[in-house]
């Protein structure tokens, strides 16, 4: 099985604080991997190290076997690594459709062809397909800033898929989303995973969401990996029960 | 060596005046996120007002200066806060900063159209003449300006650290939210910082105008020097603004003599750019947490 992402010996220290303290894991092609852990366990720091937002103290990130440690976020994006953010990150004064076109535009052609060519034609179609898929049709021409929180979350996720990424990292996609919207989001993610064989890593607090969506789960505590395995295995692990599920 | 000593004293004198302006600048920045692009004009205007009061109302100079001080404190201490900063701040830091640019044009043009486009003599409040120091003829006025400016800064510092009101003001500047919770009347404290800023500007104005003459366009260089002093010293520190003021004053005077009088302004500017690029928190400032 090919490993899309492999993280080896990742460490990130802030002064004396060991936010991430030696984490190893990998993600197989077509897999939905969940990363869970209590607040402050280092999940988000780990994400930011993988994605080039933070420079790791030590460790290596491999994308399809090639080292990509320390690349800029935009360079990683061009290599097919896409992400969503914990807090909402859409472009409020652009319309929903323009948000999606923007999410795809830097992945085709050159800068000059983007200025002089009619590079938009295919992208508009792709954006419209994405709008239909996430059922945002009635909002397509509205400014993203005017959407409800849940709708913006959907748009945020849709943007991550615009460029047909190899790997998508979702940072707390369920946070603050109402149950109806959450079900819609989960269904979309599963459909993309099934139909396109897309690979995800999901960081989440919402246990039900992770356990029902993911095929494999990594449990973190205090900057380290506590356990990993299928949702059932993890649920049964005494250390996990102690540290996280036990309350 | 003689010349160097003279320049040193002159540099410390102008530096102390820049420090007055820079301290006011950092105070209003701290309490209300106001980047006052009109700070230079704040220093330019009181002297013009005093001259206008003397010439138009035929007042003796001391009375004119007091009237000008009162008017300035009212307009640019209270009025500035109430009618510009308060309504603009809710729109954000940038619109407010831009509004102060418009204010700077307004003040400059007002001084030019309302008083004079020419540079005017401004009576010195400190003795003229020179005295000999290590064989160099040092300007008595420079020394006096330095002493008066430093005395003002020390007084301010004593007020802030030794009095209850001053400590409350300082606490408000550092954390308005907490101050509000503790029952401080935050609005009043902020108004106080604006009044202090205006007061420092008046002081700086009366000290610098005898040296460079009173002219509507004086604000450009003074304002720029105050920004540089504030940033070089550390944007949110009174001590920093003081140190920054001296550095800019010295660099400015030495550059005028040893580099080129035409480019004297460029040298402190170069210093500013180097600091912004390589040490943006300034000499004494704290590095603000970088958000990733």
């Amino acid at each position: 099985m090919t490993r899309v992402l492999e993280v080896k010996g990742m460490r990130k220290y802030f002064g004396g604080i060991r936010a991430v303290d030696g984490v190893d894991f990998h993600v197989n092609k077509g897999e939905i991997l969940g990363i869970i852990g209590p607040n402050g366990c280092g999940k988000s720091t780990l994400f930011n190290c993988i994605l080039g937002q933070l420079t790791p103290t030590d460790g290596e990130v491999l994308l399809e076997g090639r080292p990509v440690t320390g690349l800029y976020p935009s360079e990683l994006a061009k290599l097919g690594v896409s992400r969503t953010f914990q807090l909402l990150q859409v472009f409020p004064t652009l319309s929903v459709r323009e948000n999606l076109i923007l999410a795809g535009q830097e992945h085709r052609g050159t800068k000059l062809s983007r200025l002089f060519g009619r590079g938009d034609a295919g992208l508009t179609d792709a954006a419209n397909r994405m709008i239909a898929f996430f059922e945002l049709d009635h909002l397509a021409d509205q400014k993203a800033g005017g959407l409800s929180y849940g709708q913006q979350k959907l748009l945020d996720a849709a943007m991550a898929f615009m460029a047909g990424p190899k790997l998508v990292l979702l940072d707390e996609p369920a946070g603050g989303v109402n149950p109806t919207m959450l079900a819609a989001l989960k269904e979309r993610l599963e459909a993309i995973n099934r139909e396109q064989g897309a690979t995800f890593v999901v960081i989440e607090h919402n246990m039900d969401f992770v356990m029902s969506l993911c095929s494999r789960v990594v449990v973190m505590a205090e900057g380290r990996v506590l356990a990993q395995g299928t949702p059932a295995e993890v649920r049964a692990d005494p250390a996990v029960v102690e540290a996280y599920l036990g309350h | 060596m003689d010349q160097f000593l003279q320049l040193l004293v002159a540099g410390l004198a102008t530096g102390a005046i820049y420090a007055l302006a820079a301290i006011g600048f950092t105070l209003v920045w701290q309490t209300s996120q106001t980047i006052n692009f009109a700070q230079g004009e704040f220093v330019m205007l009181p002297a013009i007002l005093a001259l206008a009061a003397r010439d138009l109302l035929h007042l003796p100079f001391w009375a004119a200066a007091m009237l000008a001080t009162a008017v300035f404190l009212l307009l640019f201490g209270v009025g500035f806060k109430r009618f510009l900063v308060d309504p603009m701040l809710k729109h954000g830091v940038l619109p407010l900063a831009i509004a102060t640019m418009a204010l700077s044009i307004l003040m400059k043009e007002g001084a030019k159209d309302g008083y004079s486009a020419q540079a005017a003599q401004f009576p010195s409040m400190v003795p003229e003449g020179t005295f000999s120091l290590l064989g160099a003829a040092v300007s008595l006025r420079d020394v006096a300006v330095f002493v008066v400016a430093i005395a003002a800064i020390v007084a301010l510092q004593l007020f802030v650290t030794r009095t209850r009101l001053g400590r409350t003001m300082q606490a408000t500047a550092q954390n308005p939210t907490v101050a509000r919770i503790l029952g401080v009347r935050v609005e009043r404290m902020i108004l106080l910082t604006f009044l202090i800023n205006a007061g420092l500007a008046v002081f700086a104005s009366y000290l610098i105008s005898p040296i460079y003459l009173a002219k509507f366009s004086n604000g450009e260089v003074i304002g720029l020097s105050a920004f540089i002093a504030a940033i070089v010293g550390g944007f949110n520190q009174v001590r920093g603004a003081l140190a920054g003021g001296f550095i800019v004053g010295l660099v400015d005077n030495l550059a005028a003599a040893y580099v080129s009088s035409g480019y004297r302004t460029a040298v402190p500017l170069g210093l500013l750019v180097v600091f912004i690029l390589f040490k943006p928190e300034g000499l004494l400032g704290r590095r603000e947490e970088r958000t990733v």
Partner: protein
Amino acid sequence: MIRRLDPNLVVIAIAAPLLWFIPVGFKAYGLYVVSLWLVMAIAAMGLNLTLGYAGLKSLAQAAFVGIGAYTTAILTKNHGVAWPVAFLVSGALSFGVGVVLGFPALRVKFHHLAFVTLAFAMFVFLVARNEEWLTGGVYGFSNIPRPVIFGLDLSRALPFYRFVLVVTVGLSLAMWWLLRSPWGRAFQALRENWMRAASLGVDIRTYTLLAFAIGSAWGGFAGALYAPLVEFIDPAPFAISASFVMLLTVVVGGSGFFLGPFVGAFLSFVLPELLRATGGWYLLVYASVVLILLVFSPTGILGLVERAREHVAQRRAAEMRAAARPMLEGSEAR
């Protein structure tokens, strides 16, 4: 799907022929004022790209107008270079300097960036004032020639005005094209959320430099027209207060609105000339108007128009909802 015509383009298409004919009866001074309006609108258009669209705070736009004006004056007057060449060189030089000035923008944001650009503007002013061998110092350049292009003599006011108009329309269309291209979208993404933009593959370094450089090039182009328009240049119009005025122009017109620079330049450059007829105090009146306007509408005049339009649209939507409510309640009751 029929593409809806961009209203900005419609305005250009209607305004251009009107502006071609309207000033026919104007005296030389009137033509000068209208020409100045267009030239400054070009410079403001450039700053609107840098500040309004890409969100980079620059206080140096007047310095780029100065670079363009001096370049054109030196090349056409001292070296006999044809104006179109000088025009292109002015733009290219400003573009190059803009790239260099953009580098600090990669490291620092907001007020620090504003101060770096302010320092640069001051430096340009000092060079213009001190380097007499190059710029003529405080005396500047006089008798800057107006160009003859394709055999057309533009030395008289009306032909020169029309020439300015043609260049303005050309540069407006180029800017329009740029802003509706993926580049324009990337610039806006930079302004609204550069971190998210980076995560979507937007190369923020290159786009930041481009936003600076292209905006500066428009400043240079404006300068290339300014020099032959006024026929005399000295350092004063390129001082840092002029860069403040450029910034106010963009903000008052409506930062991030395509036509904002034209509205703003009218207020900053035509209104004072109109007020000049009423005696002194005109800059004072101008600054007061700007201040009052900013307090009431920090998004500028076009921002005010947009808000009014949204307000009307919202009220209409509310009325429609109110009209539809009985039906809705009826269906729920069933």
